[in-house]
């Protein structure tokens, strides 16, 4: 194949071909120069921008949610520092291959992690995917140690919600959670991104906009491995606004303790301005479970629980009011001028339209003054029959039944006030006069919520001055938000529909007599010596006797016990509504109410008669409220940077801590311009969150 190469020496390459090669090379070089010109001279600005975007990453700084305080500035809901792990996709790095390692290191379920990744597939690549919240120390260490292999992982310090433990005020406070897929379709969450933490119930939901603050970001220069190689600037997060609730921790605690593990609800309100002093609903849930993502099984357990722990019974339980409805009946009867002169002979019941309606006792001859404290069914059957359903409905609507009260909490129920029109609309049937009889004693189709009951009884006791209840002091809210709030929570709101002076006296005296021991004795369980505690019990059948027989033993068919009470009987400062589901008798509910009322009364006495003591800084032990297992109660030295400074100089050790409640005068003296406007008028001194 290869012969000697010496034979053809002297042969030369044709110059022509070499010239062709030279020109060819020249042309190609010119093409390359042209390409460079196009990129570096013509396209320089465009590419410079792209290069900028390439290396800047916005690391979100999540704003701490505003804290919640009680009406005296005692901390109810706090934040604690926690670490969340995010996955950043824009690396040109094969994230999929790393998933098993990530799942193992962060103790995640691989399938679940893959599902999460799929959910975010449609999102822009620069948006980090939240994959785990509340990392443990060893998980944080895992991310830090694998920065090289897993550059896509990013940890972010966030402030997480810390709620009182054991579901203290949980239904009212609500909880926070990540925006779900379905939520994103809801216009309320239009501005949110998946993974954002939003308030999902109670105060957290209603006041989400104020509480959440504005997230900031750190602009850092990163390399394509996601390693930070420089720092450009920071846009600080604006922390959420702290909110002062109208809740009084002392009363709330009394209500929680009084209700205990009973199924029911207690709401306490100041009828003069609608401040809710206490609101509790049992059984309840622990919102701390939601502060971090709740797992599917726990969630399913909560929502399918037949006792409905997620339900705020104060505003959502729509139940027959029983005898508490008789106060409305009295108003209607007196205002219509019927009840004043009506006397009924009670022989243990009466027959209407061929059907016998029973009363629990033989009361003999009864007038309105005695019918209220005795709670004589026969009297109110007769009154209902004479008023007719539509007149009853008219007065019921006037006092705000059958419509939301407009309380600043989401999901308020309307209750039901039956009428001929209501029946026609909902059942396409005409109203039978016989149905009116049981409505007269708060049975039948009529249902109310505890908050409606408290508002209506207090309103009548206040001489027809009905208020819109609220759990957050509206004075601290920005004007615009306040207006929007009123619009988004329409309801009966504030109204004044005064009864005549004589009627007012008759009804309030009747309620006062009900709590007097010895006389009528229906609500004597709520009697407090030396306190003008007027009230009305209610014992409401949960089903008819025939239905009870049908349902058998499995279902709790004991009647619901109600109690509504005011202190004092006219122009009250205090109203309490107690619902004890399956509590058998209204007097049992009255007993619970008395416990709460005692605490309130004692507090008032102390405030009124021992002013100096009331103003001295006193320490309130909060141990029962706070969880001991929560990680944030660790020594502050470890995580002691930034926002875990707590209000009022509380001491975070061991789960129990003490809060100084400074006197009013001191607070006014230290009013600083650094504080938010609403805090300056507050009698309580707050320590600003350090950010």
């Amino acid at each position, binding site marked *: 194949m290869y012969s000697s190469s010496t034979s*053809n020496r002297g042969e030369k390459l044709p110059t022509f071909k070499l010239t062709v090669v030279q020109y060819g090379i020249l042309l*190609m070089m010119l093409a390359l120069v042209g390409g*460079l010109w196009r990129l*570096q001279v013509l396209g320089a600005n465009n590419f*410079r921008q792209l290069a900028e975007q*390439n290396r800047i990453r916005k690391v979100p700084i999540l704003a701490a949610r505003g804290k919640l305080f009680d009406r005296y500035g005692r901390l109810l809901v706090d934040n604690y520092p926690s670490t969340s792990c995010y996955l950043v996709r824009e690396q040109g790095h094969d994230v999929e291959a790393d998933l098993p390692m990530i799942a193992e290191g962060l103790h995640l379920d691989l399938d679940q992690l893959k599902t999460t990744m799929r959910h975010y597939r449609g999102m822009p690549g620069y948006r980090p995917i939240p994959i785990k919240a509340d990392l443990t120390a060893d998980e944080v260490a895992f991310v830090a140690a694998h920065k090289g292999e897993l550059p896509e992982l990013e940890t972010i310090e966030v402030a997480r919600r810390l709620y009182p433990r054991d579901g203290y005020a949980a239904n009212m406070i609500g909880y926070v959670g990540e925006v779900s897929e379905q939520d994103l379709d809801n216009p309320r969450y239009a501005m949110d991104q998946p993974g954002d933490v939003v308030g999902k119930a109670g105060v957290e939901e209603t006041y989400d906009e104020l509480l959440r603050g504005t997230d900031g970001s750190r602009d850092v220069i990163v*390399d394509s491995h996601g390693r930070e190689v420089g720092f450009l600037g920071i846009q600080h997060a604006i922390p959420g606004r702290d909110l002062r609730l109208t809740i009084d921790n002392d009363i709330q605690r009394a209500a929680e303790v009084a209700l205990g593990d009973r199924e029911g609800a207690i709401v306490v309100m100041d009828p003069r301005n609608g401040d809710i002093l206490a609101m509790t609903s049992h059984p309840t849930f622990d919102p701390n479970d939601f502060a971090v993502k709740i797992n599917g099984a726990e969630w399913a357990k909560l929502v399918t629980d037949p006792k409905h722990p997620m339900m705020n019974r104060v505003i959502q339980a729509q139940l027959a009011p029983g005898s508490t409805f008789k106060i409305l009946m009295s108003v209607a009867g007196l205002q219509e001028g019927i009840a004043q002169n009506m006397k009924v002979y009670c022989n243990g019941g009466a027959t209407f339209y061929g059907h016998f309606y029973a009363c629990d006792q033989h009361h003999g001859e009864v007038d309105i003054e005695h019918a209220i404290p005795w709670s004589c069914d026969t009297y109110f059957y007769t009154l209902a029959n004479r008023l007719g359903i539509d007149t009853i409905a008219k007065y019921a609507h006037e006092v705000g039944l059958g419509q939301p009260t407009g309380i600043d909490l989401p999901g308020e129920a309307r209750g039901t006030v039956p009428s001929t029109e209501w029946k026609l609309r909902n059942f396409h049937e005409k109203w039978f006069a016989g149905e009116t009889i049981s409505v007269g004693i708060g049975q039948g189709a009529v249902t109310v919520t505890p908050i409606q009951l408290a508002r209506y009884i207090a309103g009548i006791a206040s001489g027809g001055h009905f208020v819109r209840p609220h759990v957050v002091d509206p004075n601290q809210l920005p004007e615009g938000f306040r207006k929007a709030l009123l619009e988004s929570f329409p309801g009966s709101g504030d109204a004044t529909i005064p009864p005549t002076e004589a009627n007012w006296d008759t009804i309030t005296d009747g309620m006062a007599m009900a709590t007097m021991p010895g006389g009528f004795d229906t609500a004597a369980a709520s009697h407090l010596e030396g306190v003008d505690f007027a009230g009305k019990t209610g014992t409401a059948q949960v089903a008819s006797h025939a239905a009870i027989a049908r349902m058998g033993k499995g279902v709790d068919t004991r009647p619901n016990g109600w109690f509504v009470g005011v202190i004092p009987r006219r122009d009250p400062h205090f109203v309490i509504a107690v619902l004890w589901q399956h509590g058998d008798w209204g007097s049992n509910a009255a007993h619970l109410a008395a416990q709460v009322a005692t605490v309130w009364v004692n507090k008032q006495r102390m405030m009124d008669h021992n002013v100096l003591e009331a103003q001295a800084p006193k320490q309130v032990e909060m141990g029962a409220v706070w969880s001991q297992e929560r990680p944030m109660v660790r020594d502050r030295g470890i995580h002691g940077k930034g926002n875990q400074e707590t209000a009022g100089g509380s001491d975070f050790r061991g789960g129990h801590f003490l809060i100084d409640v400074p006197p009013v005068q001191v607070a006014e003296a230290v009013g600083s311009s650094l504080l938010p406007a609403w805090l300056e008028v507050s009698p309580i001194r707050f320590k600003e969150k350090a950010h």
Partner: protein
Amino acid sequence: MRRFLSFRDFDWPLLLMVIVLCCLSVMEVHSATMHTRFASFESKQIIWMVAGMAGMFVLSKIDYHRLLDWAPWAYWIFLLSLVAVKLVGRRVMGARRWIALGPIQFQPSEWVKLVLVLAVARYFANLGGRDVSWKEIFKAFLMVGVPMLLVLAQPDLGTSLTYAPILVAGLFLGGISFRQASILIVCGTALAVGVWSSGKILKPYQKARLTSFINPNNDPRGSGYQIRQSLIAVGSGGVWGKGMEKGTQTHGYFLPIPYTDFIFAAFSEEHGFVGAVFVLLLYFGILMRLIQNAQTASDLPGSLIIMGFVAVLTFQIMVNVGMVIGFMPVTGIPLPLMSYGGSSVLFAFLGLGVAMNVRMRRFVN
């Protein structure tokens, strides 16, 4: 029979241009690898360059006719080593390209290039520059095609492609007729289409790499990523560049392997249009100088050796720079004398050594 050989006849201007290029290379390798685990690669690069230069001087002392006589032996030995690589080679990143001889590891595919230049030059020189027959063309194809396929199977598409210009140059300068060339182009096109659509010879990632340059934005995360980042690097350099060690694309690791295949992008980012054109001018100068040497060579084999080398250099420069600025697909072909890498540097210097060799003997006879 031969005149006294002197290093005065060495092509000093050519060497000067090469050394300037080497300095730029060392500078850019330093810049591109600082703060990475490849830091101080530039000193390794210097060692390779010094070794390459030594090799160049040694090679220039051996009469290239003797080298041509050795070429057939070397050809077969390297063909065997390519087979050996396929069988026992070390697997690095999914490809068998390296073979270990005791403590030394080497990549025979780079050396095959040099051997092929010599073998092809010898083959066509033997044909005497007259018109070639189809049989002779077929033999030439076989000579280059077998090692090409072996390297392609490693798989190393880039290196295998660099063998092709040796054949093209040999055919073009060795006397192929216009008619034959036309037929070959038509057949070649048909073959390329066949290979592309058969789906067996080229691996999917190779295909993806070959096409993504057309529209890198189609797949900015996958195979288009490198091209996109490279374009951003070059474009953002502007006219004057961002300055030494200031390339954000390079130092932010956005640019893939900025010290080897994409060193030109890194250089263009930091030194701008001016720097990039300066480098291209150096290459142009080197190539022209080499062609001039081919012209003045004393005989046909000498000319053909140099032109084979020129063909490989030209191809690598065009494909690499073309890749960096988005004209060509990503093929993993290093930029001669710039890219970091021992084999590549050694090939360039040994090739230069042979060219010097030819030049120094231009007055023989």
